[in-house]
């Protein structure tokens, strides 16, 4: 379970998170929508401790992420994150990309790490690209590789930060299909996205962020069909 309690976060004078309260249960798929600068991506990077927070707290399975005593490297094994940029390690093959953290962080033996990497790459449809370097892959393939890389760590939670935003339109589908597959397998996911159709289909709940505040959160049918706040109505009107 991820518990976010009254989290505040500023970059200089700009307050990007103005007291967020949110709980994500095991197995839940939460999508986060909102305009740019609404704080939704920042929240994700705070959840796995890549960004410090100013006040409040975030608990992952009861462990406080930003406590001094928390071993972040250990905690991050539980939380996979995939970013807008694909971040493929260019000097490693697809297989090596997916094996690296398994070997270094989990200390898995080579054969085991390789078997797991192959399994995850097959899972995302890259089973035929194992020995290829990332520069030979399309954006969509690189993004799927990044997803496999995170999944290979056997995380309990997956965070997706606008993973389709940098892709050509014709490549968005393949990545969303991968996310749908994960959701159907029961993975706990928080997806920051601009894909409204996707949000509507896969989410258990959808959260709408506006200017650093979680303005509305509800099951997709309710949120999309009967938006309560004027800001959300405006946002939905603009994205349709």
């Amino acid at each position, binding site marked *: 379970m991820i518990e976010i309690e009254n989290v505040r976060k500023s970059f200089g004078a700009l307050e990007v998170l103005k007291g967020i309260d949110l709980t994500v249960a095991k197995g839940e798929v939460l999508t986060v929508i909102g305009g740019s600068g609404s704080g939704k991506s920042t929240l994700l990077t705070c959840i*796995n401790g*890549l960004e410090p927070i100013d006040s409040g707290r975030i608990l992952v399975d009861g462990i406080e992420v930003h406590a001094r005593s928390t071993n972040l*490297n*250990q905690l*991050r*094994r539980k939380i*996979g*994150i995939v*970013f807008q*940029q694909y*971040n493929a*390690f*260019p*000097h490693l093959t697809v297989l090596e990309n997916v094996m*690296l*953290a398994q070997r*270094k*962080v*989990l200390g898995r033996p080579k054969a085991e790490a390789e078997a797991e990497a192959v399994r995850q790459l097959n899972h995302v449809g890259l089973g035929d690209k194992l020995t290829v*370097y990332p*520069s030979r892959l399309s954006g969509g393939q690189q993004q799927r590789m*990044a997803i496999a*890389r*995170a999944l290979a*760590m056997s995380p309990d939670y997956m965070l997706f930060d606008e993973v389709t935003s940098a892709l050509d339109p014709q490549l968005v589908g393949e990545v969303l299909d991968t996310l749908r597959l994960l959701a159907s397998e029961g993975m706990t996911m928080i997806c920051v996205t601009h894909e409204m159709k996707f949000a509507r289909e896969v989410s258990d709940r959808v959260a709408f962020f506006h200017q650093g505040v979680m303005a509305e959160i509800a099951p997709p049918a309710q949120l999309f069909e009967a938006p309560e706040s004027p800001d959300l109505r405006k946002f939905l009107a603009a994205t349709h």
Partner: protein
Amino acid sequence: MFDTALTTNDLIFLARGAGVTLIVTAIAVFFGTVMGIVFGVFRYQVGPWWAAPLTFVLDIFRSIPLLIQLVLANAFVTTVLGWRVSGFTVACGVLSLYTAAYCAEIVRGGIEAVPPTLRRAARSLGLSWGQDMTSIVMPLAVRIALPSWIGLALGVMKDSALVYVVQVVELLKSAQILITRLQEPLFLLIVCGSFYFLISFPIARFGGYLERKWSRD
């Protein structure tokens, strides 16, 4: 066409000089690179403010002509400190620091060229700072920095000719000794230049080979 007084023994003498040049260069490049990596990582990691004293010292080594550094260092070590060290040791020491000063900049530039988003992705997978540095940053920074580093190594090899001022007889000094004796300056300089080329060329080609190999990734 050639009527020269150069004997086989003289050639061996030159080859020995070339050997000294190679050894001085190898020592300077090795220790200079090791120190350069330490200084470069330090400078990158602590930021410009805290690294200012180190940056200042390295700037001194980069801006004062090597010849002056050698003479002053030699005088300081032997006369002021009264150490009994050979010119060879002084030469290696000064040349190492000189190399380190340039190498630190190359290393810092290489690290800075690794996209921060890539490092963030590495850390998000649970890699520690050290693991990120060795598995991600180092391999990528080395690829970026290699051409500059090869240039530095070749430059140091040629700059090492200046160590004659602390009584180290390396390649160029050997050639000068022969010129004084044989009075065939042009021919001897061609021979000496060929020696330099023979040592430099493989290094340059090796760098080119690595670049091609890595660009296939």
